[in-house]
């Protein structure tokens, strides 16, 4: 019996050390359909590192997973307003992005951003806007105002789709009603709540995944949408138009960060550096159609992407980047959303 235990212990020890030495691997946890396979293939070929990709559907899911102690991810891709939360909760680590060799390629506008002012944590992925899209064959409006989305006309009755998580919906509502982001004022939040409850009468579904399918099938005539994702829907042949309302749109900036529990930090840094090379970043932008934060990528864009309306907004468009909300403001947002969902 003793010998059996010794053998068992030896096997366990070998397994554990094998896991610890798992060099040559990189685990990426990214949004759904946000990691082009050809880009991963290129990185694997150049670096010899084996990459695995797992996906999530919202910043909230990412936070909940990391908060629940999910380990084994080397790179995750939160939006700008979640980066400070991840830093404060001790869920991501400093990797000195500013010292990577390709950091010099970053556009000045995006270096040392307020959510990571030393650029210790985050490397660029994509940035884009959140607004709404409509099926131009079925809708008579022009998407000129957020009013069309929040106070839908009769033709949208039962044909409007809204995101499933409160984050960006409420930010857009803030812009439309002229209420500051992360408001801690109960009266203002009540105003948003009332508007969303009324809007719900026209809503067919709360959905953050298949917006373009809903528009293409005509199940919805108008949906919440992200700029680049809307372009992908349009490229499948559906008459999808991404709206630039006069009040403005929500902007977001997604960046790569390294969880504290990461096992392959050096490989994560290699990947971050790889992504700051314009050739590689252009590949990502070509696939996703949002904006990138690396100089010289446009030279590698296709003509289609260069002229895509989704990445060429009107020059006078207001883009508002939401900050991290205080716990009080966040709890008001959750209350509003739960009320709407009841």
């Amino acid at each position, binding site marked *: 019996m003793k010998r059996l235990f010794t053998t068992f212990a030896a096997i366990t020890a070998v397994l554990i050390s094998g896991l610890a030495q798992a060099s040559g691997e990189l685990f990426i946890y990214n949004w759904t359909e946000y990691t082009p396979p050809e880009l991963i293939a290129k990185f694997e070929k150049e670096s010899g590192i084996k990459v695995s990709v797992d996906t999530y559907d919202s910043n909230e899911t990412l936070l*909940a997973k990391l908060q629940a102690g999910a380990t084994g991810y080397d790179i995750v891709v939160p939006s700008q307003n979640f980066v400070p939360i991840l830093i404060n909760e001790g869920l991501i680590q400093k990797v000195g992005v500013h010292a990577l060799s390709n950091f010099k390629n970053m556009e000045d506008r995006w270096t040392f951003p307020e959510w990571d002012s030393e650029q210790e944590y985050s490397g660029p992925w994509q940035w884009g806007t959140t607004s709404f899209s409509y099926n131009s064959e079925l809708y008579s409006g022009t998407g000129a105002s957020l009013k069309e989305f929040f106070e839908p006309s009769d033709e949208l009755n039962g044909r409007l789709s809204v995101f499933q998580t409160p984050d960006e919906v409420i930010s857009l509502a803030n812009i439309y009603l002229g209420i500051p982001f992360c408001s801690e004022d109960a009266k203002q939040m009540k105003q948003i709540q009332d508007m969303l409850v009324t809007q719900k009468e026209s809503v067919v*579904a709360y959905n953050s995944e298949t917006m373009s399918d809903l528009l293409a099938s005509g*199940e919805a005539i108008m949906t919440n949408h992200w700029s680049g994702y809307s372009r992908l829907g349009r490229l499948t042949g559906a008459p999808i138009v991404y709206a630039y309302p006069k009040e403005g749109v929500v902007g977001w900036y997604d960046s790569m960060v390294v969880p504290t529990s990461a096992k392959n930090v050096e490989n994560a840094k290699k990947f971050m550096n790889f992504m700051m090379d314009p050739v590689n970043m252009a590949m990502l932008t070509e696939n996703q159609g949002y904006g990138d934060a690396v100089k010289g990528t446009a030279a590698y864009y296709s003509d289609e992407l260069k002229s895509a309306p989704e990445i060429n907004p009107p020059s006078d468009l207001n883009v508002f980047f939401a900050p991290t909300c205080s716990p009080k403001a966040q709890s008001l947002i*959750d209350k509003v959303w739960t009320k709407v969902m009841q």
Partner: protein
Amino acid sequence: MSDWLPKSAAGRRWLGLAPSYFVIGIFMLIPMVIMGVFSFLEPNPYGGVKPIGSLAAYIKIAFEYDLEDKLVFNPGYLNIIFRSFQLSFGATLLCLIFGFPVAYYITLQPENRRNFYIYLVTIPFWTNLLIRTFAWIIILGRGGVIEAPLLATGIIDDSLRMMYSDGAIAIGLTYSYLPLMVLPIYASLEKLDFRLLDAASDLYANRFEIMTKVVIPLSKPGIIAGCILVFIPCLGAFIAPNLLGGGKKLMLGSLVQFQFASARNWPFGGALSMLLLSVVIITLIFYARAAKNRAAMEGSA
């Protein structure tokens, strides 16, 4: 040889069962205890819990602090819970209506073909539930499998709007859990002594009476087991309500999921899970009692 084995039979039985105690302990009891403990703590604003005791999560099920921070009765969550029960009840009833005849039909088949039919019933389990539910979007959707021919032949001229409704959720739930109804009913019908049917018929019972007075009472254990097996997962379901119902009306399952993701209120999610768990346990206790009574009655007969 084997001198390390316990001497007594009880000890050996315990040792033999140890692996299953271990599995149930690790994968069922410990997570449930964690959930129970979390439900009595305070939420951390960005997910997780603070180690401060609190009953807030349970109070929240029926009361709320309104936007001005006053504690008022809030039927909102109770409505969601009630709605979940209603829908689960409906889906269970539909499963019974469709499942019983299927199980009965299979029982009437020659023995060598029964296994093949049972095998067919289990085939849906081979594919992920999410994918099967997505298929219903194509079936029920605007211009989908059902609508397209009706639209083409001019029987309807506008969409029936079947998707994103309570009806769609009920269809999705019924479809998902129908096999769980068929299998236990089949298991109890299989043991049915068909000579009893002949006897009933000899005693001038008509077909309806044979069904209601002989077949159904004798298959009751299977029917009850099937209903429990369907009702319980329906209560916690969130795939069908989200995908087919459009996530417009929260169900208990989606409400719990929302607490752990968007709302970042783990204690409240835990409290709702505990509520769900108590309902399940109470149902099972009643079932066990009824089964015991029945066994006692049969024993004394």
